[in-house]
């Protein structure tokens, strides 16, 4: 089952040893067996587990029922393998296991359909997890193929929320989630990653560096045992954990396909606050957030909107980050160009179309880019940054 186990030994980041001298969190035999069962059934869940309601109903079943229901004819063989598994093997160093029978198990995870029975925690361990969840947390989710606008917004949201001290929850797979995590890490703030595989497997490979960084300063949790790669079915499974742990779920960019809005759907089902970042009406990636807004989601333009939704309007101020302050001090001519870019004249072609003052415009663009106020996005577009 742990096919990647040996091949990925080198990929495994050096995990911090958990806080010593603490009570070892409880991981009872039944819950360990449950985790091993999920690991065994993972390939079979690919098909039946993609629908969140279906999946939640399945995961509420007892071990034997689940095994019979999902494995069918192979159930007897799999049960034999499961019985042969030695659950007493300790997890890799730096990873702690906690099951729902421990008092420190996040209470939010005990509610709702398909509640996970146990978690693997890396990066600071159970104690850190408790700290991160003490205050309301915000999840930032979105499309797997986001635009550079979405990445920029997600990065800024993650950064500003984390700078204010709000825990940012997200996965690792989609671009929006990775950008939000990066933003939070850049601000040195709290992050919580919900992994689709084992906590120790940084996949996709392009996210390996980010995964390593997350384990050093953030915290990662996973339902599947260590060594497992992410399963496709786990999108929906992760959605239920994210929705359970976060008070507010913000969708940054998503097309209106069901798969892209899965987190929002689960969060709404659980009565969580739902936020959405608007985009251009013409952009297909704005369709998801715009339909959520039409249905009553909170409009999120930045960290302040998220804080207002969590704590009440004006109760808590977002920390002004360096970039925003700097922008206020810009010379008027640079400020004017930056505003034109922000208003949608974001390509060299559009900016130069007017004809007059081209040289001054080019110089202003160069200065803004060198000052870090503009970055280049897809198709050479300029994007306001910071």
């Amino acid at each position, binding site marked *: 089952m742990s096919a990647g186990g040996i091949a990925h030994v080198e990929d495994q980041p050096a995990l911090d040893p958990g806080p010593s001298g603490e009570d070892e969190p409880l991981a009872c035999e039944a819950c360990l067996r449950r985790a091993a069962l999920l690991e065994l059934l993972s390939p079979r869940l690919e098909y039946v587990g993609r629908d969140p309601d279906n999946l939640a109903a399945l995961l509420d079943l007892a071990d034997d029922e689940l095994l019979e229901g999902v494995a069918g004819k192979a159930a007897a063989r799999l049960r034999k393998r499961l019985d042969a598994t030695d659950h007493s093997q300790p997890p890799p160093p730096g990873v702690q296991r906690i099951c729902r029978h421990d008092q420190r198990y996040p209470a939010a995870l005990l509610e709702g359909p398909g509640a996970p029975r146990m978690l693997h925690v890396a990066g600071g361990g159970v104690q850190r997890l408790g700290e991160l969840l003490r205050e309301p947390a915000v999840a930032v989710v979105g499309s797997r193929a986001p635009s550079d606008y979405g990445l920029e917004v997600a990065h800024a949201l993650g950064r500003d929320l984390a700078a204010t001290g709000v825990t940012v929850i997200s996965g690792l797979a989609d671009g929006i989630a990775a950008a939000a995590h990066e933003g939070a890490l850049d601000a040195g703030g709290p992050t919580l990653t919900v992994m689709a595989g084992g906590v120790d497997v940084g996949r996709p490979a392009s996210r390996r560096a980010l995964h390593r960084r997350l384990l050093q300063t953030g915290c990662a949790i996973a339902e599947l045992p260590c060594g497992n790669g992410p399963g496709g079915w786990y999108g929906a499974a992760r959605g239920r954990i994210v929705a359970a742990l976060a008070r507010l779920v913000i969708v940054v960019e998503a097309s209106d396909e069901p798969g892209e809005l899965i987190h929002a759907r689960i969060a709404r089902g659980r009565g969580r606050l739902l936020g959405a970042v608007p985009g251009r009406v013409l952009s297909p990636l704005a369709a998801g957030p715009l339909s959520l807004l039409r249905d009553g989601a909170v409009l999120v333009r930045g960290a302040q909107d998220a804080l207002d939704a969590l704590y009440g309007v004006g109760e808590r101020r977002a920390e002004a980050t360096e970039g925003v302050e700097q922008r206020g001090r810009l010379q008027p001519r640079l400020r004017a160009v930056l505003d034109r870019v922000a208003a949608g004249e974001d390509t*060299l072609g559009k900016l130069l179309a007017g004809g007059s003052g081209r040289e001054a415009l080019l110089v202003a663009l160069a200065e803004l880019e*060198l000052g870090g106020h503009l970055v*280049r*996005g*897809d198709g*050479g577009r300029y994007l306001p940054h910071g």
Partner: protein
Amino acid sequence: MLARAHTFTIEALQARPVAVEVDIRRGLPAFTIVGLADAAVREARDRVRSAIQNSGFEFPMRRITANLAPGDVPKVGPGLDLALACAVLAASEQLPGERLASHALFGELGLDGEVRPCHGTLAVAQAAHEEGLRALILAPARAREAALVEDLDVIVAGSLCGAVRVLAGGAGDPLPAPAPSRPGDTDEKRPDEPDLADVRGQRPALDALLLSAAGGHNLLLSGPPGTGKTMLAQRLPGILPPLTRAEATEVTRIHSITGRHHGEGLVERRPFRAPHHTITPAGLVGGARPGWIGEIVLAHRGVLFLDELSEFSRAALEALRQPLEDGHVAIVRARHSAVYPARFALVAATNPCPCGHLGDDHIPCRCRETDLARHRRRLSGPLLDRVDLVAHLQRPGRRELGEPPTYTSARARELVVAARQRQATRLEGAGVCVNADLDARLLRRHLALSPDGERLLHTVQDRRLLSARGLHRLLRVARTAADIEGSARTRERHLARALSLRIESTQADRRAA
């Protein structure tokens, strides 16, 4: 009796001297040719026999042995026919042999004795001059090309009889009158050639095209399908500056050897080569078979246009690295090796992503993250490292389509020619002629930054936005921008323009990180 004649064979881009020795002895009638002759040379036996007989001479019915010296150089092509026939005639005493020592012969023979032109005439004429030969006898059709070599007597012989007359001390045929020049050979823009005035909007891409033409910079055009990448590239030949005489000689030599030069004098137009993306590495750089000239050599002193850059095979693109850096390509194979000149400007066009719509305002990109990463990997690194300019094209909006055209080809060409002239004057004696070829030392000497330019450059350096190589590319382009404007100093605005058209690490790269 023994006779000897001088001729040449083409090896890579060189004309190698060949001595044709013919010995006629008593024995059974036979005609053998030795000395690493290829099929075309071995077939010369039959052509030579018929030509001699049809010209009213007698083909000796004795044992004829022809040796092509030196024996270790492979002889290719039909250009040796004329020398072979004349040596046979001299050996059989139908022709006085004195002039064979000072007159080189080059041409293919028809069965009726007609002398036909062969590829590589200019190279042969140059080699004949270097060998110290007094005259070159050849077919009328290529005579004007050979006449470009000074201090060499070019004698025209329309037939074997004519050649015999010359070798016997007579005069050659008159040099044919120059044919009316055909469009495409001269430097003038063809009337049916597309004009830059057809392009609306796309201001940054036009600027980049102009910079590339003026400074010889490598250019990447990136944009969704249908935004005009190929359209722009097709208009590039119309604004390229004319070849200088020295460049034209190099280009004519190459094109004459490959049989692509159909004019009479020098090639005047810069080469523009646009191979299809299925081309093999050997087709691109050369070496597919002995003597095969690659596309990049044909593009020497001109432009190599690669449309759909990401579709080219990885190996083909990798093969471009060294020539792009060095300006020549060394082809080494088991049976042949040669160094070819290959100083060309690379102009490439690509979609921004596999589906083509990344960054498009209206059509969503359907690529997965892994597709994007693969697309980027394919282009990035070796090749993009050598691209000086990138222009992103966007679908023009209503406003742009309604605008008057920015440049006509004629106006753009004026700017380019003037900028090249300024570079040539400034770089006189430096060994290079365009800004793209400036090395770090020359760049420092010729950059002449103004104070405001200096300040911007310091900011660039402080921000660590660019690698050392990237910085040099930026400065070269800035220098060209200044040359187009006619400014002696490189100012802030020139650097700003270069910065706006540089290869940047985009959000997309950060996404993959």
